[in-house]
């Protein structure tokens, strides 16, 4: 625990607050980054300290471990063998099998490599355009287009005081309580459904309120999700499949319709509200739902 005194103690003092499981995660994570030995030692020291305070059997007894080594590994059959042969016997030595050392590629192999390289070049340059992509590397990046999201400039809006833990009988009632007068909720369309769940979640630090109402009838269901923001920092990511995005314009607002594995999603922006509806409804019903929002 010597590393925990003086400077390093301040640097790694936060480790004391972590559990043994979290410290073990830190050790695993440190394998992927370059880290000074002091850090590793500090993590191990804290684990040892915590283990000695409340032993869980993680740390084996040294005498028992030595006895096990003598019985299972240091045997006559294993004489001359090493447990860690892949590291080589000299510093900096490579773990190349001796039979392969010093043997270069012959002419035929080089010719084969050249053929393979030409073939790879043809595949990476000719195949992607044939499949509708700009380049081979874009084939991976192209999937990002299956996520639907908005990119809008920041919009300022009035932000009323939110009642705490209030319960509302309808989504419109929740919006009215928050002094929202924008047309955001379908009118006649939801009369065919029953409200089965309504939640209002406030994110104080984000000046954001989420409204989620779920409706169902005997045949199907849908969910309305409204995000009210004072400032647009980031929008939600919407899952979508390969089907095309359709635009339906109503009340001078573009409503985007797309599918997520067969389920319809409608997404649109109205003032400071990011709005969406998703559920098992037909395209015709989706358009009827949109029209219903603006009927007065």
């Amino acid at each position, binding site marked *: 625990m010597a590393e925990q005194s003086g400077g390093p103690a301040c640097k790694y003092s936060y480790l004391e607050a972590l559990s043994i499981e*979290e410290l073990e*995660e830190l050790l695993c994570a440190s394998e992927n*980054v370059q880290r000074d030995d002091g*850090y590793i030692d500090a993590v191990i020291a804290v684990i040892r300290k915590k283990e000695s305070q409340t032993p869980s059997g993680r740390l084996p007894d040294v005498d028992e471990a030595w006895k096990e080594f003598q019985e299972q590994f240091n045997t006559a059959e294993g004489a001359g063998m090493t447990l860690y042969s892949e590291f080589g016997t000299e510093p900096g030595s490579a773990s190349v099998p001796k039979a392969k050392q010093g043997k270069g590629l012959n002419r035929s192999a080089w010719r084969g490599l050249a053929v393979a390289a030409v073939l790879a070049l043809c595949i990476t340059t000719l195949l992607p355009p044939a499949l509708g992509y700009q380049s081979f590397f874009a084939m991976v990046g192209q999937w990002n287009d299956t996520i639907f999201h908005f990119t809008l400039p920041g919009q300022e809006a009035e932000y009323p005081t939110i009642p705490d833990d209030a319960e509302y009988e309808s989504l419109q009632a929740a919006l009215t309580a928050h002094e929202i007068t924008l047309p955001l909720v379908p009118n006649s369309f939801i009369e065919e459904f029953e409200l089965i769940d309504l939640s209002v*979640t406030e994110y104080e630090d984000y000046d954001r309120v*989420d409204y989620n109402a*779920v409706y169902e009838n005997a045949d199907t269901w849908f969910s309305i999700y409204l995000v009210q923001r004072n400032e647009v920092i980031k929008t939600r990511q919407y899952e979508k499949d390969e089907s095309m995005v359709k635009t339906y314009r109503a009340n001078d607002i573009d409503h985007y319709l797309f599918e997520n594995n067969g389920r319809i999603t409608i997404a649109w922006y109205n003032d400071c509200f990011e709005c969406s509806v998703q559920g098992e409804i037909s395209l015709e019903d989706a358009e009827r739902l949109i029209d219903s929002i603006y009927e007065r």
Partner: protein
Amino acid sequence: MKKNKMRIVSLLLVLACMMSVSAYASDIVPYASDQISAYDGDAIAVGNGRIAIEFSIEGTGKMSSIGAQRIRVYEDYHSDGWALVKTFRQTDDGMNTSGKVSYGNTMYYNGIAGTKYKIEIVVFATDSKGVTDTRTVTCYVTA
């Protein structure tokens, strides 16, 4: 000569395998979902080194469990990379709920003012059949 042909064929087969791995890699990239409809995650500094980590997720129906599976906070150690300093787990309070279509919350981490952090948020939804889908959002914030 026969040996050389075999080598060339082997090389081509290796190349073909590499190409097929690329195709599968694209399949595991988030691409529609039977459990997740929409999600988001973000992290902002709220003063004195405190970071507010927000997440929200909407399922494709009522989910047996929905929310954040894991939130990892990494501290910037500059040339040494990122050090994991905090993990919020699915079992921690405020991370998820049951029997709901959507869930969201804000978790807090007390960092060091002026220090840069990387936040990795994994949201998830598990349907009534026990099938889980996840999405990961990574964001950066200076506390």
